[in-house]
């Protein structure tokens, strides 16, 4: 993982806005006037401009970097070329360049996106704005401190299988398949970044797990061998009720996990079963369906 590139080379500071003309002027210095044959066929070289946020906790600003454009590039390629030529100290995270490690999350033209999966030629003309994720504290340039997510992860009550000898556990294919979608998560945390519950209302972070962890909770709640009941936890401490199902998490997920439809809404419905549905409550009273011990659950899965 590259948090920062090495210090600037002895050649000196980078010139953020160096243009082709200036470079030509430098070349020409002392070489005497040169005559060109300005043929009509000569075209301006196509360029790409990245407007990158540079800064740290003390503040920062957008800086334009213009480079000759190359075919088939993704935004991360351009960032790397900027590091190699104009700004060796530009900090960014990346690892796989294949949309699988979840390190290069940033906001491109204001939308949470993976830099390595966003093609330059698919973006509209004009400068491309690249900024760090907004929801997490800034470290430097495009690198944010995502440790909030690790703290939330630590608080997800672990998988609790019923007591059985190792090797005696059995699961059916249909039950295993159900949670498979949620395991595609690459932990890019862009869903957490876009979620307005914490993006625009930071104080909610204390009591909100966020979409990435709602899919983790859903996976556990749908696990055929799990015996924990996390519904009250979700309702009281993990802020499931704060989510207003506006689906931005689903829109940005690079793994196309149907976070809202397949995890959050099913969890909300489970919380209704446990806490808000008077008929379900009455049914439990009449049928005496109490909380089951792990042994019972193992004997009679439902």
């Amino acid at each position: 993982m590259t948090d920062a590139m090495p210090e600037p080379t002895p050649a000196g500071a980078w010139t953020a806005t160096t243009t082709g003309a200036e470079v030509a002027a430098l070349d020409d210095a002392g070489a005497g006037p040169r005559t060109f044959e300005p043929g009509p066929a000569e075209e301006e070289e196509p360029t790409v401009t990245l407007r990158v946020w540079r800064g740290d906790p003390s503040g920062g600003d957008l800086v334009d970097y213009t480079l000759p454009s190359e075919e088939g590039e993704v935004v991360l390629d351009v960032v790397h070329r900027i590091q190699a030529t104009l700004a060796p100290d530009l900090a960014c995270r990346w690892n796989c360049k294949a949309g699988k490690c979840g390190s290069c999350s940033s906001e491109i033209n204001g939308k949470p996106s993976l830099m390595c999966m966003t093609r330059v030629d698919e973006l509209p003309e004009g400068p491309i704005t690249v900024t760090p994720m907004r929801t997490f504290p800034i470290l430097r340039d495009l690198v944010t401190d995502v440790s909030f997510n690790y703290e939330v992860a630590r608080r997800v009550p672990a998988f609790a299988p019923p007591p059985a000898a190792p090797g005696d556990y059995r699961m059916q294919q249909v039950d295993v398949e159900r949670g498979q979608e949620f395991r595609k998560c690459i932990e890019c945390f862009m869903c957490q970044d876009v979620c307005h519950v914490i993006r625009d209302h930071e104080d909610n972070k204390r009591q909100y797990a966020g979409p990435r962890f709602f899919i983790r909770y859903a996976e556990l709640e749908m696990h055929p061998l799990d015996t924990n009941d996390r519904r009250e936890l979700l309702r009281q401490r993990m802020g499931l009720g704060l989510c207003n199902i506006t689906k931005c998490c689903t829109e940005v997920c690079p793994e196309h996990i149907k976070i809202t439809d397949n995890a959050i809404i099913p969890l909300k419905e489970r919380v209704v079963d446990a806490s808000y549905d008077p008929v379900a409550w009455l049914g439990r009273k009449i049928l005496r369906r109490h909380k089951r011990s792990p042994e019972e659950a193992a004997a009679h899965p439902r």
Partner: protein
Amino acid sequence: MTTLDNTTVTPVVIGAPRGGPDAPTLRQDRWWIQPLVTVTVLTVFVVYSTWAVFVNKDYYVGIAMHRDLISPFYSPCIAGSCVAGAKGTAIVANWWRITPALIVIGGPLGFRLTCYYYRRAYYRGFWQSPPNCAVADGHRRYTGESRFPLILQNVHRYFFLIGVFFNVILTIDAVMAFRMPGEGGIGVSVGTLVLCVNAILLWLYSVSCHAARHLCGGHVRTFSTHPVRYRLWKLLTPLNGRHMQFAWASLIFVALTDLYVRLVASGTITDPKLF
């Protein structure tokens, strides 16, 4: 085992400096179109349906025109004030003298207001919370659906059942629309087709509901021990993926159905018999 007691509050530093410019959004695309369309269509629908509910006339095409067409806003017509012919078999509210549509409208209205899809649409469109993804929320404080009154959204599953009840009624209406009273026998007119399409769209909207998907099978932990529920769940899941489309299609068509019945009943157009 409940897991509530073993959990501690997530330690987070609130107010640490963030990166990026302090702007409500850096999006450059036309992100405002989506909420604008939502607000426009829903407003037009609300204005039209309010008018349709309160005009209290032209909602039934009866024997005089050899048809049996009733507007979905007025069915089942169970008030004393219903026009002759439109009356349901059981008049429940004989004392009801104002527009009969008011008795009817509460159920479908509650169903749509608490629908997971419409919630998304109006939270974004009307409440600006958020107007679109990565666009700043229009409010300073936010408690989502965790407090009164929005916590009441959790009753959606009951409105789903009410919605199904109305679907049954409107399906009966659609079947009745094949009758051509006074002309003898049965037939198909444009009005028949309109009522049928309306009923079909409403059924699609209801069965694709998220609460339905949960109630029919989504709530079980192990599909393998509930094969029938699993089959049902598998059947509803692809429909559920289209819930948004069904929500808009059925909303618009229900208004168009009312409009068609209204135009025929008022004599503005005649309902052509096809066969």
